[in-house]
Structures are given as C-alpha cells and as structure tokens.
C-alpha cells in the first residue's frame, strides 16, 4: 500500500497538475478578468444563468402541428403524383380526417397504377414512413408510421434550432446556447441579456410566408360566418393591416410558399413611404412566382404570414424578376424583425415559450462575489480545524482538498460544462466527502496506533481499512448521481454532473495523493512515533 515507485509518483503528479492547470483560465474569468486570447486555453467553465445573469427561454413545438403539416404536404404530393400519371388517375373524396390521408379512385381497376404512383412518396428507408392500405377495392388509405413521424419531428426540430441560431445571430447577441431538449423542445440561453422581449418576438414568429389566390366566388355573408367554399379556407387579416378584424377566403392549394428566398430586407414603399419588406426569390421560387402571377393577372392574391393576411392586392402584371414587396401596415421595427425572420428562414413549426426566466446580471455578480468570499472563508476555517486536529496528516488533507477543488474545476473546464447553483451544491457535497475520507483514514490510523501497531503498519492499515467504507460511500453516491442524471431535469442534472466528476477526483486526491505523501514522509523520516 505504501509502495510508490518513481513512475507512479511521476504519473500521479502529472495527472494532478494537468487538471489543476486547466482550471486556471476559469478561475481568472470567474474572478472577472478576461483570459488573454494569446494564451492557450483548454476551455472555461461557463457560469449558469442563475449565477451570471441572463435570459433562459424554453420553447416547445406542438407535435400535432407537425403531424398536420405533414399530412397536408402529403395531400399535395399525392394529388400531383396522381395527375402526373399517364393516363391521369381520377380520384375523389380526399380526406385527412383522423390523421390519415384517404381517397377514393373513380376507377377501381387502376388501384395498382395508383399504388405505383404513390409508392415513391412513402419513404425510401428500411422502415416505411407511411403505410399504404387498400380498403373496399377502390379506397386508398395512407397512415403515417411512428418511425416516420419521429423522423419528421426530428428534422423539423433540428431545422428549427438552426433557424433560431441564425435569428439570434442576426440581432448580434453574444454567445447564446441553443440546444434541443427531448423530442419537442428547444432551450435558448443568452447570458447577459436582461430584456428578452425582442428575442421572444423573433422566436415566436414562425415567419411562414405564403402567397395564395383569393377565392372571389365566396359570398361575403358566408365568409363572415366562417364558411368557406369547397377547396378554400377562411383566413383573418393580421393586426395592423388595412382590414384588421375582417376575414377573407383563399384557395387552400395551388399557392406558393415564401421559404425559398435569397434575401429579405426592410425598406420603404417609394409611393406611400410605408415600411415594407423587399424579398428576392431564389431561381426556383422566382419561376413559380412568375407562373402564378402570369396565370392570374387581374386577380387578387393574398400575402399570408403565419396564417394571417397582411394584404391582398390585385396582380397588375406578371412579376418575372423574382422580386416582390410585402406590405401590411408595418412599423419600421416590425418590418426589420420580419426581414430578419424571413432571411433566416421560416420555422418549420410554431414554437411557444413555455418557461422563461431572466436574472439580472447585477444580482448574478453579487451572488458570485458573496459566494466566493463565503467559500474562501469557509474553506480556510475548515483547513485550520483539520490541521489542528490531525497535524501533519491534516496538512496533507488540506493540500489534497485544494488540489481536489482545482481538479474538479479543470475537468469541468475541459468538458465545457456549466456551473450552476445546484452545481455548487454538488461541489459542497464532494468537498465534504473528500474531507470525510481523510477523517476516516486519520481516525483509523489513530485507532491502529492505540492498538499498539508500529507507525508504518498503522498507516498502512489505516488506509486499507478506511478504504472499504470510502469505497462503499462513493459507490452509493455514483449510483445516486447516475440515476439523477438519467432521470432528473435541469438543476438536478447540473448537480449530478459535478457530483460524478467530484467523486472521481476526491477519491483520487483524498486517498491516493495523501497516501503517496504519507509514504514519502515515512520513508524519508522513519519516525518511531507520529503525532496524531
């Protein structure tokens, strides 16, 4: 137990110092100084928002909305595929009720042709995204599979995350953290941001821009009652637009989406001087826009943003340049925000703020300062007590404690973890466990001496016998930490991470390192008695 050959000593010191050095940049930056950029840095421990101040926003997508969107998209693709078939496959009674797409073939003998036409749309992976069923010889039913839905949701959330990233970058916020959580959530953390209203407005805007033809056949009285002609839907005007409070009927299909833009900039209408957003379609979108305007000259079309009509002007002439102007009674601010949102792309799904927390940076700074003072005072008092109680062995324990602290911080820095308030609790627990390990060992050495063992044997026995209890105590903590990490949320996890790192380092410093020092001293001094 007390045998430490040179290479072992060397590697133990190497590990310790490497971890401890990694902690230096973090300590410097937590103390409020910037770590010089010229110097290498292994990464720093980030302070959580509860310590540093900032905004935390938890966004959630509606799973049902993704499912509905997916069915609508499928409806359009199936219609196109059946029309493209040669000869064209006639069908009717298409419905999306019950989360399934079903339609009736006019000619039951063409079931196989229809199946053939639809098949490429059902997904190409090992598992199908949709199940195809033929009911009563002429009705085809497409049901989304769970794997298909999960994949669609995953894709939607990932692209939502990227859109959010672009939007936040556009308003010049520093170092935001944007991570997905679970199936349908995205966490946005922005340190230092105290008033997140602008950010929330930006993230709350899906920014799905659509151009749809106005259904001029609809009766005004029907629209008022919310009854749309077949194939059309009723859409309200947006707040702030010219016809705020009224509704309009638009054709459900056949419009185009504004998600294929190359640029969107705020500007002013040259005639009215009203704030507008100038958009430029990419090539494909431009071609589709040109076709839509060419085919429908003289008819009104609606510009719809997130399900609300901004305006519905008449198409005066075909627009072939791929450029358009969106107006809708914007303020300058609103036009700028819409431009950012459109430029960054539409969110594939609407996101709602379900949890929000803003902590002032002043409060955060105050907490850190007081926390640091309390921590330093507490630790010094603790060390004094340990040294008074255990003398030389107490000094070993204290040095181990400081190294333990540095190692936890160093490993957290390299792993780029965030230190939160519950994380500090984890710190307190591990420091406690580390002190306890030394207390156990030293008490055991005392006992062994009292029983009459010689110095070396007593130290050896002390470490050996105490290790068993230390081992059991730490394993139980590991079990607790792993379960907490697996099943807990936010704060509980923060606690668990620090605990896991801390258990490893505290056993290492409090048991292995102190044993090495004790062994070295015993070998050099060969004491006949020890003060303990």
């Amino acid at each position, binding site marked *: 137990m007390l045998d430490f050959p040179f290479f072992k000593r060397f590697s133990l010191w190497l590990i310790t110092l490497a971890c401890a050095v990694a902690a230096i940049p973090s300590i410097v930056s937590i103390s409020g100084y910037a770590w010089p950029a010229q110097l290498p840095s292994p990464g720093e421990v980030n302070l959580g928002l509860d310590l540093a101040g900032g905004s935390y926003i938890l966004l959630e997508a509606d799973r049902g909305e993704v499912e509905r969107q997916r069915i609508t998209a499928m409806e359009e693709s199936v219609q196109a595929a059946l029309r493209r078939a040669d000869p064209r496959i006639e069908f009717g009674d298409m419905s999306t009720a019950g989360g399934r797409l079903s339609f009736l073939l006019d000619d039951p003998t063409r079931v196989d042709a229809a199946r053939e036409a639809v098949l490429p749309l059902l997904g190409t992976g090992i598992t199908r995204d949709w199940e195809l069923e033929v009911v009563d010889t002429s009705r085809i039913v497409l049901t989304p599979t769970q794997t298909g839905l999960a994949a669609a949701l995953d894709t939607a959330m990932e692209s939502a995350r990227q859109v959010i990233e672009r939007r936040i970058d556009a308003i010049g916020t520093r170092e935001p953290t944007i991570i997905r959580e679970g199936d349908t959530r995205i966490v946005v953390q922005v340190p230092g941001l105290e008033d997140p209203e602008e950010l929330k407005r930006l993230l709350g805007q899906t920014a799905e821009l659509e151009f749809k033809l106005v259904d001029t056949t609809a009766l005004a009285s029907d629209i008022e009652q919310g009854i749309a002609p077949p194939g059309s839907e009723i859409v309200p005007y947006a707040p702030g637009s010219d016809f705020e409070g009224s509704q309009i009927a638009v054709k459900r299909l056949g419009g185009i989406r504004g998600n294929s833009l190359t640029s969107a900039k705020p500007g002013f209408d040259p005639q009215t001087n009203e704030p507008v957003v100038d958009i430029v379609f990419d090539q494909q979108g431009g071609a589709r826009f040109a076709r839509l305007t060419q085919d429908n000259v003289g008819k009104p079309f609606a510009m719809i943003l997130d399900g609300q009509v901004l305006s519905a002007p008449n198409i005066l002439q075909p627009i072939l340049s791929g450029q358009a102007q969106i107006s809708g009674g914007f303020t300058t601010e609103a036009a700028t925000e819409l431009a950012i949102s459109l430029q960054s792309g539409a969110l594939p799904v609407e996101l709602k703020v379900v949890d929000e927390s803003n902590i002032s940076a002043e409060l955060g700074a105050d907490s850190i300062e007081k926390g640091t003072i309390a921590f330093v005072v*507490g630790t010094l008092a603790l060390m004094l007590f340990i040294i008074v109680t255990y003398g030389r062995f107490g000094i070993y324990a204290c040095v181990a404690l400081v190294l333990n602290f540095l190692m936890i911080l160093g490993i957290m820095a390299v792993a780029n973890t965030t230190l939160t*308030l519950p994380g500090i609790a984890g710190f307190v627990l591990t420091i406690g466990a580390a002190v306890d390990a030394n207390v156990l060992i030293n008490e055991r050495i005392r006992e062994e001496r009292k029983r009459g063992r010689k110095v070396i044997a007593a130290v050896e026995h002390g470490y050996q016998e105490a290790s068993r209890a230390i081992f059991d105590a730490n394993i139980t903590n590991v079990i607790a930490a792993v379960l907490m990490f697996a099943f807990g949320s*936010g704060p509980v996890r923060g606690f668990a991470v620090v605990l896991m790192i801390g258990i490893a380092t505290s056993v290492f410093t409090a048991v292995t390192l102190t044993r090495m020092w004790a062994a070295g001293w015993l070998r050099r001094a060969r004491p006949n008695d020890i003060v303990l």
Partner: protein
Amino acid sequence: MKLLKLIPDDTNIRFLRWRVPFYAVSLLLMAASLALVFTKGLNFGVDFVGGQLVRVTFVEEQVAPIAELREEIDALGYGEPIIQQVGEDNQVSIRMKLPAGAASDPAISAAMATRITETVQAAHPDARIDGVDSVSGKVSDELFETGMLALFLASIGISIYIWVRFEWQFGVGALFALVHDVTLTLGLFAVTGMEFDLNIVAALLTLIGYSLNDTIVIYDRIRENLKKFRKMPLPELLDLSVNETLSRTVVTSTSLLITLVALLVLGPDVIFGFTAAITLGIFVGTYSSIYMAAPILVWLGVKSDSFVPSESAIDRQEKVARGEA
C-alpha cells in the same frame, strides 16, 4: 504539538439504551411532518406550480414598501400577488398565478410580467428588477415529477447496493434512515413556509448523500465487528461500533458545519434556503445514522454470522494479536 481531540479516547456512550424512546420520538416527528405536509402543504416555488415570479430590489431604501406594492399590483387586476421579503430587507419577490388562458397563449403571461415590472418601476424609480421567472403549468408538473422520480430512484438504487454489499437488513435500515431524513426536512419546510423549489431538491439530494455517507461508515464498522466479535450481543456490538466511529462522525460533521455556516452567514441570498436545508440535514443525518439506521438492525434480526464466510486473513491476525484464537 498537542492535537485537538473533540472526542476523548475510550468514549463509551450507550447510545442504544435509548433506542426505543428515540425511535418513538422520531416516528412521531415523521408522522407530524407528513401530516403538516399534507394539511398545511409546502410553499412551492414557481418551478413546481407554474406562475410568475418577479424579484425586485429597492436600491435606495432600507425596507421594501411591501404594503404599497401589494396595492399597486392588486390594482392591475391580475389577482392578489404574494409578496415576500427575500434576503435583505429591501429585496422582495412578487409571485403571481398565471393568468387565465396563459397555458394556450404564452403572450398573455409575458404581457402580465411587463405590466407588473413597468408599474413597479413607475411607482418606485429606485426599483431594480433582479429577475423574472415564468413557468407554465405543464413544465412545472414535469419538473416536479422528474425531480421526485430522480429522488425516489436514487434512494432505491442506493438501498439495493447496500443490500448487495451488506445484508438485506442494512439495505432496509439505510432506506429507512433516508426516508426519515427527507420527511423531517420536508416537515421543516412545511412549518417555516420556506419556498420549496427545484434547488431544494438538489439540497435534499446533498442531504441524502451526507446522511448515507454516515450510515455507511457505521455499517462498515458494524460489519467489521460482526466478524471480529461473534459472541457479543448485538446491541452491545452496535454501541461499540458507533463509539469507535464517533470521533470520525464528530470531526466530519464539524468540518462540514464550519463550511456551511460560512455559506449561511456570508454567502449570497439566493442559496440561503438551500444551505439551510443542507445544514439541517447534517444534524438530522448524523442523528439518523446513529439512532435510526443502527437500532433497526436489532429489530430486523441481523445474525452475528452474517459475514463469516468472508472472514479475511487480517481478521484472523487481529484475533491472534488479541489472543482470542
């Protein structure tokens, strides 16, 4: 150099003599705590019940004008606010229930937060808004569930490990001590009305960690002594084990208390409730290791030959040294 010894050598306190009255008192306290938790309830933070929390510091005043604030916010028509002092006398937290319809449209609660902060700042120019929390009911339920689930699973996992490493009686004993600690702490939160939020769950976890550490140290010594002294009656053996580890128990607890008291007195207000819970936990945990976890072994009937097959060479040497073999 003379070193400090808090516990003199050869201390022999007969802890277990009082096991029945102590158990009775503890069980009564546990029952009272549970009754309080179910009748009076815990003062849940917004983390757990949903709602809005605005923290304000009145920079230029000694004492926050709580009565005025209550009137001003009441006048907004969102319902009655719960205003509490936190930390310094000039700091308050204002808690509001989420307004109707906020579950489906988060903009409603955002608007409420804005109006409250604007009202406060208009009436009190020195008011500094320290933070705004807004948690929807759905998320809060989830946070509560996952927090409790983690707590529950951690306790079960730990007990199973102790059962495997020791004997089933030890597993039950450790679990009982954990339940005891958590129940009493919850009782304290119910009595004082201190806010119970997610950070307190972390404090409970810390407390469990400490308490368990204590229990395991004593159990380890009991295991060792069971191997050594096969003929000794169990209560006597438990007393011996507790006494042998008493010095360690006291030194460790003192060390932790030193650090915690520093955090309580000098530390930031945000962690006060949290540190208080851990500090209390040190006392409760130490007590439960000695009076809950150990005596239960007598009643559960630990056999003195439980650990015999693993008798090691060291133990035999031990006996030779004492002339028992």
